[in-house]
């Protein structure tokens, strides 16, 4: 029974982390067309923020709930800075944003390596996450459930924000038709910045969750960025529902593969699976067909 249940539950938690990492990406890539390879490092920033908050608030019971909004703001500000200094000049060259942000991610990673101990820092798990939940005989760590709940909250908040707030409406209008939005008085500059802030902030939140599950070190962003991007792509651009399903599917699949084979073989298998998926459902990954040619 464990063999079936354990990968399912672990995979779901892993999928939730992926979803958290992918949410921000899907916002910046899906809505703005920017491929931010430093997104993983924003996640790392979130995790280090959790550590720093713990240095101030010793009680981990309290520090993690505090760290969540703080990480959102800190990572968001980094994102904003990136948008203002670099990205805003590159909206017409989406593929090049990928390379520029590769440079940014190298620098952030190196900075983290020099500021913090190279082996990483410990983030204390709050006491209320210590227990296990017995699911059909499998002792499921509560912190995994926490990731899932956190992802659910973030998805709901993002969806509500996009749907009901005026900023959200402006974002959707800008995505739909940038020129029209501009002529109808929406400052697309402000919208771009806000979108980038929110997307990067979500990475920060994801980082706090990641710090509770894995290690917090300068390399942690690398693990997430590619998987998160594949999730966004497979889910379909700008499709919140698709992203959720894709994240869960990738998380669970990886988890089963890893259970049956080894973690590294699982990665290769997952890659092959994505290619096969492309053959079956290219819509998930293909540019929307339009009539304009260039």
């Amino acid at each position, binding site marked *: 029974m464990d063999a079936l249940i354990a990968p399912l539950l672990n995979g779901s938690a892993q999928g939730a982390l992926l979803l958290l990492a992918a949410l921000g990406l899907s916002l910046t890539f899906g809505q703005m067309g920017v491929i931010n390879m430093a997104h993983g490092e924003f996640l790392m920033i979130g995790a280090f923020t959790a550590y720093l908050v713990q240095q101030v608030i010793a009680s981990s019971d309290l520090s993690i709930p505090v760290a969540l909004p703080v990480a959102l703001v800190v990572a968001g500000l980094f994102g904003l800075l990136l948008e203002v200094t670099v990205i805003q000049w590159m909206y017409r060259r989406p593929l090049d944003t990928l390379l520029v942000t590769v440079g940014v991610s190298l620098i952030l990673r190196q900075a983290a390596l020099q500021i913090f101990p190279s082996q990483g820092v410990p983030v204390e798990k709050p006491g209320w996450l210590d227990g296990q939940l017995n699911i059909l005989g499998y002792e499921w760590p509560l912190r995994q459930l926490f990731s899932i709940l956190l992802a659910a909250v973030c998805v709901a908040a993002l969806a509500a924000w996009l749907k009901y707030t005026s900023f959200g409406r402006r974002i959707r209008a800008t995505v739909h038709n940038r020129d029209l939005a501009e002529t109808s008085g929406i400052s697309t500059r402000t919208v771009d910045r806000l979108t980038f802030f929110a997307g990067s902030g979500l990475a920060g939140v994801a980082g706090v969750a990641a710090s509770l599950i894995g290690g917090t070190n300068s390399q942690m962003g690398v693990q997430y960025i590619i998987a998160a*991007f594949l999730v966004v792509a497979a889910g379909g651009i700008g499709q919140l529902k698709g992203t959720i399903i894709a994240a869960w599917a990738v998380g669970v699949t990886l988890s089963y593969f890893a259970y049956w084979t080894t973690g590294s073989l699982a990665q290769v298998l997952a890659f092959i699976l994505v290619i096969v998926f492309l053959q079956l459902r290219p819509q998930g990954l293909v*540019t929307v067909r339009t009539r304009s040619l260039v």
Partner: protein
Amino acid sequence: MTKSKPWISLSGIGLFAVLLLAVAPLVLTDHWLNNLGKYCCWAIAAVGIGLAWGRGGMLVMGQGVFFALGAYSMAMHLTLETAGDRIPGFMVLYDPLAPLPVFWEPFRSTGFTLLAIVLLPVLLASSLGYALFKRRVKGAYFAILTQALAVALATLISSTIRETGGDTGLSDFKYFFGFVLNDPANKRMVYLIAAALLIVCLFAVWQLYRSRFGELLVATRDAEERVRFLGYDPANVKLVAFVVSALMASIGGAMFVPIVGIITPAEIGAAASILMIAGVAFGGRASLFGPALGAIAVGWGQSSLGSTWPDGWTYILGLLFIVVILFLPNGLSSLPARFTAARRSPDRQPAPAIVAAELEEARP
């Protein structure tokens, strides 16, 4: 345009050949000649990236994979050659009775190894490219997928210590197809082979760029859908460029092994693949000489600064990406054209990318 003056680019390649094959061996110490050989291997891969990315618009972020195919094919052969009839040392380390893994066996043969260096990348790139291009996967998706493959392969190698040497990689090669690698004269020969292969690759892309295929490739890069309406299948055009670039990466990888003497997953993973891109971006992605020169420059930075001042080097590399892509998307090679364009008519826009690149080709 290059059309009218093919001899200018050709003499550029000639000059390059003289510098690498005649001057360098005379003026450089053995140590630096060996280093230059290493940069040449990266440059060979870079020339292929220039073809796929600069001219074809396919951002290949996982060339490490093809580099690995060549490198590990060569390394397995050299390991077996060194071990002779015995099982390679690192395998016995974990299990004294370990049999040789099945996939190692054919690499005893010189012919098979050389064939593998050529055929493995061609097979992988054509099946991967076919699957992706026919489905119109492009842009960032293509880039990320290739990078994902590099990550996956590096992880796979890291975790299979018994079969591939894992993170410590394969090293301690004594012979190179019968030649003793310790002998400086043989080292020199290996360098000369790598440099000559670089010249051959430059010559090959020079011919590709001036051919009708080269024009078609640029057309496909700039307006893929439009090419379709001229009766071509852009997937095939891109496939050819991608496969050739994969082959070049594999050749670079194969020569890397006898020159450097070790191959590890770190040399082929995501970071290594990005390093290969860095040189191409720096030198000028769409130009003939830019990728090779850029790769040599970045290679030099990597092995000198990278070892004496590793922290600083990472920052430099990061800044290099940001500054070059932001301000000089066509790399250093577009500088002369920009400069002359600005001088001729100060208020006119800089020449478009390819024109700039071709202008650069005209003055190597």
